[in-house]
């Protein structure tokens, strides 16, 4: 019974993740939408940093090689939800939105001494906008309201593997299946002068995707140093497009041949870290995505290479395992600067944020609730564009169990 329950719950959680909107940014109208930052709870509190981190206290999916850091007795489950409040500002207007959703589910474990793995489902990109416009009914003195909405996005189901060919060296890859749909609607409700219609443009996207990473971890003195590299190829997303025009009791369906195609850019990342076990860790990441090789059909839009730099630090004052109160917590801080691939009317749509968070250990240190706060902004109010100020609360639960140890005791 419980098993059935759990499966249903897990599946519904997955489908929930797949089909719900997780952004309301007007910028998500472009391309495949907002590109979601990877990483789980601990990463999020450190500016999304983690290419050189091991998956020790929690899973780190920023570099597939990191799974090698999962100790042999642990199994991790990661579940994340977020709530985000955003102020969208133009030079003249200001509007608020609140979005909240389940974000990801993942599990990680060690298979053999030299092989560790992870699988999960995470958002890759998200589309969610709703814009109202007033338009002229051409040939008349009348005007009408039109609503544009978009929703959907791309999900990534991945299986990650990390191998340890020799001491201190880990190499890994994520074999992923990217899939999802982006639905753009144009909706007009009937008024005295206009009859209703709805244009629905649905784009189904999918493809397999690979990304690779290596990590080298070594001790020098009392500190552990890490260096990590990641890479992924340029990849075209296979698309199927359907345009439906619904009016009256009719629906016209079109399957356009020359529709937008999407490419995911070639991408590199490098990260370094310094760690003192059970005390602190500091990391610095830099990623580069060659978006400039892509082209978008939107004439408003220029694309350029995307660069992201982030730093993060974690510290805990704890001395013993059974520490309580503020001394038992993990404190994290970080930040990032992201020069987006979007450039609209020669204005870069860059974003930056500071992050901070707490890790609250549960159940004798095995599991942890990670809270992270991100305060950031994106875009600009120049040239009639939008600047977004946002506050994001990210709640992550790392469930960790010592399964294999229990087996042994039995």
């Amino acid at each position: 019974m419980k098993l059935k329950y759990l499966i249903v719950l897990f599946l519904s959680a997955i489908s929930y993740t797949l089909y719900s909107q997780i952004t309301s940014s007007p910028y998500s109208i472009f391309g495949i939408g907002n590109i979601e930052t990877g990483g789980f709870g601990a990463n999020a509190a450190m500016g999304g940093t983690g290419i050189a981190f091991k998956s020790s206290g929690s899973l780190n999916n920023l570099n597939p090689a990191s799974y090698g850091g999962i100790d042999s007795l642990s199994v991790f489950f990661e579940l994340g939800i977020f709530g985000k409040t955003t102020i969208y500002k133009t030079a003249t207007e200001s509007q608020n939105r609140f979005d909240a959703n389940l974000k990801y589910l993942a599990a990680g474990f060690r298979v053999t001494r030299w092989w560790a793995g992870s699988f999960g489902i995470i958002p890759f990109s998200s589309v969610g906008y709703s814009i109202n416009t007033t338009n002229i009914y051409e040939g008349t003195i009348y005007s009408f309201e039109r609503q544009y909405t978009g929703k959907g996005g791309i999900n990534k189901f991945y299986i990650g593997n990390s191998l340890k060919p020799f001491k201190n060296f880990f190499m890994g890859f994520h074999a992923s299946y990217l899939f999802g749909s982006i639905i753009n609607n144009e909706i007009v409700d009937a008024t005295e002068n206009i009859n209703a219609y709805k244009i629905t443009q649905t784009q189904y996207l999918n493809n397999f995707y690979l990304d690779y990473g290596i990590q080298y971890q070594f001790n020098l003195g009392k500190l552990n140093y890490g260096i990590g590299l990641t890479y992924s190829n340029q990849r075209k997303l296979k698309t199927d497009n359907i345009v439906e025009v619904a009016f009256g009791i009719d629906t016209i369906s079109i399957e356009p041949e020359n529709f937008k195609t999407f490419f995911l850019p070639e991408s590199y990342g490098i990260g370094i870290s310094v760690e003192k076990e059970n005390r602190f860790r500091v990391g610095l990441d830099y990623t580069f995505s060659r978006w400039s090789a892509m082209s978008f059909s939107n004439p408003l839009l220029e694309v350029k290479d995307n660069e992201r730099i982030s730093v993060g630090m974690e510290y805990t004052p704890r001395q013993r395992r059974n520490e309580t109160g503020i001394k038992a917590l993990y404190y994290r801080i970080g930040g990032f600067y992201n020069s987006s691939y979007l450039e609209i009317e020669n204005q870069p749509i860059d974003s930056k944020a500071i992050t901070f968070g707490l890790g609250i250990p549960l159940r004798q240190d095995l599991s942890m609730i990670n809270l992270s706060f991100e305060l950031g902004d994106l875009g600009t109010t120049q040239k009639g564009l939008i600047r977004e100020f946002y506050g994001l609360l990210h709640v992550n639960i790392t469930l960790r169990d010592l399964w294999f140890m229990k087996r042994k005791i039995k």
Partner: protein
Amino acid sequence: MKKHIPTRFIYTFLKYKIIFSFCSAVIFFTGLIIIQSCGEQENTFTIGSTFLEQNSRVVLIDTFRVELSTVQFDSIATSGTGVALCGRYSDNEFGIIECKSFFQIGIPSSSIIENNEVYDSVTIMLTFSGYTYGDTIPNQKIQVHQLTENIVADNSGYLYNTSSVDYKEEPIGFTVFKPWVNIYESIEFRIDDNLGLELFEMLKYNASQVSSNEAFTEYFKGLVITTDENDHGVIVGFNAGEGAISLTLYSHIVKENLIENSYDFTLYNYYQQFNQINYDRSGTLLSDLTVQDDDIPSIETEDKTFIQSGTGLVTKIQFPTLGEFLLMENSAMLKAELVIAPVINNYTRSILPDSVIIIRTDIINRTLSQLYNNEGEKVTGKFIQDDQYNEQTSYTFDITDFLQAELKDSYFDYSKGLLLAFPENTFISKLNTLIIESDSKEFNAPRLKIQVLVYDEE
């Protein structure tokens, strides 16, 4: 130990309720904030409109040709309308129209006539329905004739404006009245006493002819009301429901006192009552119009078309160039409105009809069915009266559903036209008219206003 990972997973899942409760809590919490956030998303959000590629447009196109013609129905069923039309009217547009009303009468409900009862007189009483068409000022002389032939409906139970029943030329009674004075009253006038006596004797001796209504109508075929051939000012309506017209025998008995009696032969079989409506259109624009399948285009009738109830005149509408809509790429017809206007300065003499309907027709002008929209409502013209200048006075028909359906198979058969007519109750019992402007150069020309969504595939 390292081999059965999946089984071990499930096993562990089962074992640790805590995971289950955690997940539930998280999902519940998420659900709550989602519901909350969904409520907020309803607000209009205008920021971001500059990012949209607004490629679709909504355009009004009113250049598709609207071709009008006048159709003369071969006949229309005029039986059982409850109104007896009687009179003659002539004008320049519609010619001479003459109405005669035929009906049967039945026997009195009780008729025990005593031996010493004496016949006095016989009259007929007609009650005005209130409907007139034409000029109510001149006097009108109406006559009552006895039918020499039975009124026989056709297989479907109808009699038509073109139906005819023979009657004796010599009237059995007549009267002259002033329609404008009498229009809300009844009129009663004497009928030939020979007929009165004959009926009286029959009642008195319980003749077989008065034993039942069937027997009586076999003997007494019925009556027709006609108008003197010199009167051509007005057509009036009399009530013609069951029992609404009565032929009354008056008699008296002398005993200690004078006792006066009367016996009513009233309208019987009201559904067999019908109005014959003859028209003579010679000298009018419609003089060539004789058969239903041959309509006259508006260009041959001075860019006007005609509707007249009673005589069965309707206006046919066709959209000969609408097939070109199908050649417009990426276009959807959101709405289609037909706007027609009466010829200006023509309708001051009478009030414009406030209801005009549409009947579907084919190439030979048959009436197929009244036009309904997808909601199952009859399509009627929305009437706008511009009292000040008359310029906006028009009827607007929403024919969206009709045209969407006609265009659906990517082929438009323009011979499938539409007929403009009056609602059925008016059409069969009145003589109302409407003259429609058909000149495409006039400001109030008939127009097909199509709202087109031009969409982009991308």
